[in-house]
């Protein structure tokens, strides 16, 4: 049981990234793979600031800003330099590997002694339940904020940009600016996933982000399948189903592992 609960918590931690990829992939229709870099960036910033004894609220904010900066660079490279979005993402992701490595100063940093966000509310004696609550708390806040933004006039403009650029231009929307902001939001969500996972697994590793974009894409694909299957139109519900997709993804992995499939395969 604990095994599956652990998978559930990990799924909750990664669902922020799923929301970010939902923004780039489904709303803007941009294949953004800056994710691999910004996820690790979030974890690196978290590890460094935690080790330096910074308070958690400040760390969340700085992590989110770091991720947003990464997304902004991808956005600028894509819109200003007119480089294909996929390539822009690859460029920034590769660049971030060096940035992360020089920030961290070594290939990994354990956080075993640090007080993490997961020990913040010791409501239950079982640590997994506490972790579950923290994961749910973050998901509720992030999904709630995102759902609000996407329902505002600004959010409508964002959603229309990925839908019909000729329409948004004619309606006074600066598509390039929208894409830059969208990529910033997406990557700051991804960095927050890095923030959570680093603390959850008690270490930051320079390679922890490699291929993580696939987990996010998987979550969005599962979520999107559920969304179109159930015909969900309300954006807030769509976000919840994307998060659910992320959790299902981890549970499927857990089932596969418990069946004895070699993870190194």
């Amino acid at each position: 049981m604990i095994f599956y609960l652990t998978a559930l918590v990990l799924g909750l931690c990664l669902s922020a990234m799923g929301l970010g990829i939902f923004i780039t992939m489904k709303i803007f229709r941009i294949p953004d793979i800056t994710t691999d870099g910004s996820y690790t960036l979030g974890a690196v910033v978290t590890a460094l600031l935690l080790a330096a004894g910074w308070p958690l609220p400040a760390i969340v904010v700085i992590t989110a800003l770091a991720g947003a900066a990464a997304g902004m660079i991808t956005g600028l490279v894509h819109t200003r330099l007119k480089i294909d979005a996929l390539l822009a993402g690859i460029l920034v992701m590769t660049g971030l590997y060096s940035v992360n490595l020089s920030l961290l100063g070594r290939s990994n940093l354990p956080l075993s002694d640090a007080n993490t966000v997961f020990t913040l509310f010791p409501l239950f004696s079982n640590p997994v339940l506490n972790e579950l609550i923290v994961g749910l708390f973050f998901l509720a806040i992030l999904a709630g904020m995102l759902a609000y933004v996407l329902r505002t006039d600004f959010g409508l403009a964002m959603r229309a940009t990925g839908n019909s650029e000729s329409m948004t231009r004619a309606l006074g929307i600066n598509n390039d600016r929208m894409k830059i902001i969208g990529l910033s939001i997406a990557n700051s969500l991804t960095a927050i996933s890095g923030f959570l996972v680093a603390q959850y697994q008690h270490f930051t590793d320079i390679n922890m982000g490699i291929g993580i974009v696939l987990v996010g894409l998987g979550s969005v694909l599962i979520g999107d399948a559920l969304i179109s299957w159930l015909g969900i139109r309300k954006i807030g519900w769509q976000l919840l189903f994307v998060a659910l997709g992320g959790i299902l993804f981890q549970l499927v992995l857990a089932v596969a592992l418990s069946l004895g499939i070699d993870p190194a395969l």
Partner: protein
Amino acid sequence: MITLRNIQKTFNRGQANEISALRSVDLTIKDAEFVVLVGANGSGKTTLLNVIAGAILPSEGRVIFDQEDVTLLPEHQRSRWVARVFQNPLGGTAPDLSILDNFRLAALRTQKKGLRIGINQAFKAKVKDRIALLGLGLENKLQQPIGSLSGGQRQALTLLMCTMDQTDILLLDEPTAALDPKSAEIVMGTAENLIKELKLTTVLITHNLQDAHRYGNRLIQMAEGQVIRDLNQAEKENLKREEMFAWFG
């Protein structure tokens, strides 16, 4: 008022496939004038419309709205004056968003799209009233994605969306080209009513000579990137349809 001064546009300048889409167009369109633009394919009509909208920057010349020189303003900044209906019904609406969401964005064409939820009961009621004018029964489908509607319905809605915010200039690029005759009739009828009611300065491109004859109070024919005929209201009214057909004979 739209003033075009010596507008020239050359695509692929200096290359083997160089095209002079516009060669020195001088044109003044007065307020509330409804200009119908006709001409063969490749005569420069759509390029001219795009120059007015800001989608294409001219190689030479100035574009002036009232007293303001807007030559260098990109399309999304010219939306303060200009509303557009595209030839492709898909071009003017966001298919995955609901009718209501599309109208909300259109209602903010000249304004900032801020971080507040702008769709409330009053707005819904307003959109409902507007859409009811079309008589297509769409007023009860406000939450439906606009992409699920037919091309004619979308084009009619795009036209209404153009008037949700302050509009000075309305650009219609073959709005009925992709529609069946009945939908085309609805779209053109709606357009005429709105243009008269709101006194919009309008440029309509059409290949339908019946429409060109019937609508508007000024008729301009283009060929090879130049204005070759310019008929004012009286001349246009006296123009017989057969004469006009002969232009293209």
